[in-house]
């Protein structure tokens, strides 16, 4: 069996949840041949962050912001495409079906040349005059091109022939996967770690570079892509149930939906022995990037240290992905006079640190189902997590609480819970034991791998069978 995994800007260049998930999946299915299609936001000039497993045959790297204006497909009628887009814009209902039909007709074909055609120009003028006549035209034109280039790139990033196309997001990666499905005839599985269109919505809403008037249409486009992908995929999986609500909201077919939680190598992490150490060690594990809320964690630690003076904060993860943010974190540490108490380890083998940690802090403002939470639980570490993604459900598991939940950015509550865990040994012990037990029961790697293995086998067989 040949599986093509499609990612957007992550594996194998960037470490993190999705990348680790891909690596684990590939490593643990040595009998399956994998290819990876990486849709890159820019040309990477750094080596892979992972050692590529033997059964991963090729990594195809496509650039999202790129164009090729050559016109190879004589059969493609741009007037027809543009008429379809006109209809799509005018449609009030059932847009996803129509969009899927358009995608099917253009899959794998050269499309960029359309942007240079007079008919496209007339189309863009028509849309402008109909919907945005009060806006500046130059801004409008480049905004539309800015919308379209990555979408067209993704559609034209034809993946290699495979039995299964497994996309990790519903956005550009799924558009590429759909092209693969339409052209080569494979099956499409979409595994959403977070909810892509919601993440884009938050990003666009907060963006200062996108004029307000264009935010709503842009969000609509991402919602339309997600809805179409939900409709066209053969199976739609998420890591946890709560996310399914967002998928159902966009008319996902419940019969196609599955929950396959993340899994970790429980044996490996449960073997880590606790090391004797002085004081109370707090770990934040992850990339030093804004989404991880590192500054919130540092502010919380500044409160903790007043109550628990011999505590330390270890920030374990690469610092080179957003150097400005890293500088901001270092500056904050310096300003708070915490230089001796806060340690940035950089890229590191986290398993070497878990033994000397007392609690895992997840201060993120967005997460899916973080593997580090599961790893920490397997090591017997209680957690303090923000109420994002699936973190709260895991921490407040009905079979036993494994940590505390606080709201994102609420560093005062975060500090309060950390202090509680530092001072209340029996509470610490209860959370620790619950964590070990729950992760062993529900979040093992074997469970996850087997679930995907069966899923692959079944979609290849008939595409619609339930697990």
């Amino acid at each position, binding site marked *: 069996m040949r599986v093509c995994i499609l990612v957007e800007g992550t594996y194998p260049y960037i470490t993190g949840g999705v990348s680790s998930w891909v690596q684990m999946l590939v490593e643990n299915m040595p009998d399956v041949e994998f290819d990876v299609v990486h849709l890159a936001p820019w*040309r990477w000039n750094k080596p*892979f962050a992972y050692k*590529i497993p*033997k059964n*991963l*045959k*090729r*990594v*195809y*790297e*496509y*650039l999202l*912001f*790129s*164009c*090729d*204006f050559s016109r190879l497909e004589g059969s493609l009628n741009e007037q027809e495409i543009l008429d379809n887009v006109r209809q799509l814009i005018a449609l009030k209902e059932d847009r996803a079906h129509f969009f899927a039909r358009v995608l099917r007709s253009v899959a794998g074909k050269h499309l*960029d040349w359309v*942007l*240079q055609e*007079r008919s496209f*120009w007339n189309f863009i*003028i028509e849309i*402008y*005059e109909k919907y945005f*006549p*009060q*806006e*500046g*035209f*130059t*801004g409008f*034109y480049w905004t539309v091109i800015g919308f379209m*280039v990555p979408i067209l*790139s993704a559609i*034209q*990033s034809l993946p290699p022939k495979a039995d299964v196309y497994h996309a990790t997001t519903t956005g550009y990666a799924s558009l590429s996967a759909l092209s693969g499905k339409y052209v080569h005839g494979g099956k499409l599985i979409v595994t959403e770690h977070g909810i892509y269109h919601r993440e884009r919505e938050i990003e666009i809403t907060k963006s200062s570079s996108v004029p307000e008037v264009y935010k709503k249409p842009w969000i609509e486009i991402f919602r339309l892509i997600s809805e179409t992908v939900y409709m066209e995929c053969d199976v739609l999986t998420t890591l946890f149930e709560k996310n399914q609500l967002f998928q159902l909201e966009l008319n996902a077919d419940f019969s196609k939906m599955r929950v396959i939680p993340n899994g970790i190598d429980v044996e490996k992490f449960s073997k880590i022995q606790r090391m004797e150490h002085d004081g109370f060690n707090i770990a934040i594990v992850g990339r030093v990037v804004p989404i991880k809320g590192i500054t919130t964690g540092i502010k919380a630690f500044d409160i903790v240290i007043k109550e628990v003076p011999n505590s330390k904060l270890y920030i374990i993860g690469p610092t080179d992905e957003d150097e400005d943010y890293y500088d901001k974190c270092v500056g904050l540490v310096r300003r708070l006079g915490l230089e001796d108490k806060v340690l940035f380890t950089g890229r590191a083998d986290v398993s070497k640190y878990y033994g000397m940690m007392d609690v895992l802090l997840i201060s993120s403002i967005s997460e899916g189902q973080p593997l580090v939470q599961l790893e920490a639980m397997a090591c017997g570490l209680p957690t303090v997590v923000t109420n994002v993604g699936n973190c709260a459900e895991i921490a407040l598991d009905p079979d036993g609480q494994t940590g505390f939940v606080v709201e994102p950015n609420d560093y005062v509550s975060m500090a309060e819970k950390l202090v509680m865990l530092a001072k209340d040994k029996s509470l610490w012990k209860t959370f620790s034991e619950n964590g070990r037990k729950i992760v062993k029961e529900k979040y093992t790697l074997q469970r996850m791998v087997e679930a995907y293995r069966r899923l692959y086998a079944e979609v290849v067989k008939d595409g619609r069978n339930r697990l």
Partner: protein
Amino acid sequence: MAGIGFELNKLLKKNSFLMDIVSIFYSANVSAGPWIMCSLTLFLLIVLLPRNETLFFTSAVVYSFIFSTLLFGVVSISVTRCLADLMYKKEFSKMYELYSSTVLYAVLSSGVFLTIFSLISWIDDWFKLLLFSYSLIVLTVVWVQTIFVTTMMVFTPVLVGFTVGNVLGLMLSVQLFKIKGENFAYLGYNFGLMFILFFLHVFVKRYLYTGAKSKRSLILWRAIRTFKTQAITGVLTYLAAWVDDFVAWIYIGKPIVNGFVFAPSYDVPMFLSYLFIIPTLTLFVLSLETNFYLKYRMFYQSLEENRTIKYVKINKRILDDNISSTTKTIFAVQFAFVLLGLTLSGYIGRIVQFDEYSLKALRFGILGAAANGAFLYVSLLAYYFDLAEIPMRSAMIAFVTNLVVSLLYLRTFPALGFLVGFSLATLYGWVSFKRVYRDLLRFEFIRREIGIAARQVIVHENVEK
């Protein structure tokens, strides 16, 4: 001509007839100053000096003019374009660096040409070679200086320099000829050229020299490499203008001194015919760099300032009207001067004692020069819209046609190649320009691919077995 617009506008704003005359004179000088100088000087030399006693002088002036423009052609448009970029980026210290490099190129390229020329032609009269070398080098440098002075928008030195230099050169030529003969007449002419060079250099240094330590740089090389289409166009344009003269030298030329072949019955009428495009050159520079430029700027500003499409289209219509009226006016004026030239040709022919062949050359030359003026107008328009390919292809058409037709018909129909070549080039240039211009708004958006990489897929094979 990058910066003339501002100065001309200042003059035109005063809105008096006198000032209009002054600004037209400015325009003529800036655009066609050197051409006027040579054509007029040649005309006056022919009239004022005995023709048979000044053949070397006349032919050497023509040679200096032709070969200096060819050498200058390599850098003329590319350096102008580079200068415009430096001004836009406010990199003023590099402008003098570019000036020094271009002057150095002018001297070195002239030196190389002269070395080859003297080796091939075995010139035994060293004084004559020195006089010719001097005029060639100085003239090439003067062309270079003209670009810089006009870019700085200090037109007074161009006006004063060329006027005084011309008059001085002419007076000294005539006076020295009477005392010491042909060679000294040439020396007098060269003195006039030297005055222009010195005068222009003082102004260039005053306005561009920033005191930054002069360093050897490759700025000129980079300018030519970046704007190579413009560099090729520069050479091709001048080649197209002169190739019929080269054919004439081969077919009907007569040796003057070693190395100098001259075809006065062709060359002299051709130079005179250039006088009839001065009005066109003047008018089109005046129109394009003033009124047109304002409309042009308004149109592009409306795009840069992110105006609504309605506002942008209004500006485009204004620009359309301006180009249309400017073109009509220029062609009407040129037509009038062509008619005048053809009417006066018989009279002029009698003054300068033209035979039947020369008179025919003058008449075809007047028509050809009009076509050449139209070609320059269309080329300048194309440069405004950054369509450097159009003048290049047009110049290629002009060159090839002029060469072929001249080789076939120069003996019977002198200057027909020049006329047909530039007529076809103008026609091609205008049609090509209009094709883009009609769709200018769309073109301006789709031409910008900057910032978007070419699509490619990089496949990383896992080589581990």
